[in-house]
């Protein structure tokens, strides 16, 4: 379980996150939703040690995040940010193989390569695994990075807007993959997501942030209601039930 207690962060005196406390249950998919600038990505960065908090603490399985050894933590929790520009020229397969670094320290064993192959297959990228990342589209790049995170094979997978740059087909594909990671492999997935309908259709638990605070959290049924969304987004959003999913109609 990941537990955040009273996390706060400010940039240049301006508070971005104020006293956020939350729990991420094991084996569930948790989505962070909320308007732009609500502090979702900042919270995700703090619970993945990319960013140091000003105050508060993050506990990963009961142990403070700073107490973990970096390498052990990298086998426990992985994080993918929304922009992943790298300066090195790598093929998809080479990038994915970096996901095994916490295990192999750069000297990959047959076991490591098995994980790499599996991750590439999971993301359906076998036919482009030899291509260089700069030859691929933004969406394909995004999928390659997700494959790397899958190869890292951590219990907790944290993703910051994984659907950025992706078309509908690949968005659905990625959400299905993430769902499979949770259901089949028992992973814990936490994601920041903008499209509330994806959050509604795939998550187990939704946390809503607004102006640096958690305003509401709960199951899909509790969160995807006109009243809850009104509080989060200050919009009147009608909810339709389609094939058993709660779909938000907010376009008009």
């Amino acid at each position, binding site marked *: 379980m990941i537990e955040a207690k009273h996390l706060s962060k400010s940039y240049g005196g301006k508070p971005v996150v104020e006293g956020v406390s939350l729990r991420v249950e094991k084996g569930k998919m948790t989505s962070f939703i909320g308007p732009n600038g609500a502090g979702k990505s900042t919270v995700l960065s703090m619970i993945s040690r*990319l960013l*140091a908090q000003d105050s508060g603490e993050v506990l990963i399985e009961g142990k403070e995040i700073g107490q973990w050894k*970096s390498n*052990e933590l990298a086998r426990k929790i992985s994080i993918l940010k929304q922009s992943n520009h790298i*300066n*090195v020229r790598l093929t998809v397969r080479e990038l994915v193989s*970096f996901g095994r670094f916490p295990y192999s320290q*750069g000297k990959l064993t047959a076991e490591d390569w098995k994980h790499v192959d599996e991750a590439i297959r999971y993301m359906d990228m076998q036919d482009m695994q030899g291509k260089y990342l700069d030859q691929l589209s933004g969406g394909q790049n995004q999928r390659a990075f997700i494959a790397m995170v899958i190869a*890292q094979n951590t219990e907790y997978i944290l993703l910051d807007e994984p659907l950025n740059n992706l078309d509908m087909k690949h968005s659905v594909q990625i959400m299905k993959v993430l769902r499979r990671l949770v259901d089949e492999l028992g992973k814990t997935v936490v994601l920041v997501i903008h499209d509330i309908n994806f959050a509604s259709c795939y998550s187990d638990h939704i946390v809503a942030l607004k102006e640096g605070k958690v305003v509401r959290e709960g199951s899909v049924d509790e969160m995807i209601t006109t009243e809850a969304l009104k509080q989060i987004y200050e919009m009147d959003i009608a909810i339709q039930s389609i094939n058993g999913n709660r779909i938000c109609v907010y376009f008009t």
Partner: protein
Amino acid sequence: MTHKWKLGSLAAAAVALIAVFLFANMIGSFDYVFPRRVFKVLAIVMTGGAIAFATLVFQTITNNRILTPSIIGLDSLYMLLQTFVIFAFGSMSLSAELNFIFSIALMMVFVALLYRLMFKREGRNLYFLLLVGLVLGTLFGSLSTFMQVLIDPNEFMRVQDKMFASFNNIRTDLLLFAAIGLALIGLYSMRFMKFLDVLALGREQAVNLGIPYDYTVKRLLIIVALLIAISTALVGPITFLGLLVANVAHQFMKTYRHSLLIAGSMLISIIALVGGQLLVERVFTFSTTLSVIINFIGGGYFLYLLLRENRT
């Protein structure tokens, strides 16, 4: 071409050039000429290797292929010291040994202060460090120029000698000292080598993949500064070479693996320096300096790269 083959041919070229340098065109007593040539080659191999390694590591840490460690101002500080000594005490005042030790000590104090200032507060990023180094480097450069225009023209000639890297008057005792220093730093840096490939992916990926990022980057920056300080104190300002060889190594090796890139860039560095020194000694008979030749070839190479990129 496989990587092994590429490294092999670079090594062969380096060895061949060194052999030509050592044995060809031997005029005069073997006992006199040969040891002097050996010391020159040793100095070249050491400083060339150190500069190539330092630049490559520096570029990997900063994720930027057009930076060289000279941006933190060590070269300028060295020149300032050389100018100041001559300005204040005259050209005959400081022995080579003292100068060497003094230069290294001053550069290390500077780097220690700079890093301490930067890393005391968390959240200061690497580029801020580079910016401060750049500003201070410019300040040192201006101070040097100020003193240079005031001193006696004969004394200025002495300063000018120091402005360009030279392998012509290597002191053997200093060479031994530098060799021990470089070897120790090399040994210490081995433990960080496996991290370099991952560091090249940027901070976030490196943290995600379990690298103690701040710890590693601080140590590597200190290693880079030490290498530069020792090489500069030994032969003069020579960081210009690093930019050239690091980029040629990337271009030639076409890989992301630092074990190969480092080996490649060190060999290219040795080839460039031995080749350049051969030209200086045997073709131009000391009428020009090594820096001029390396800069000329390096400039030409970058123009070629620019033109080629333009066409495609």
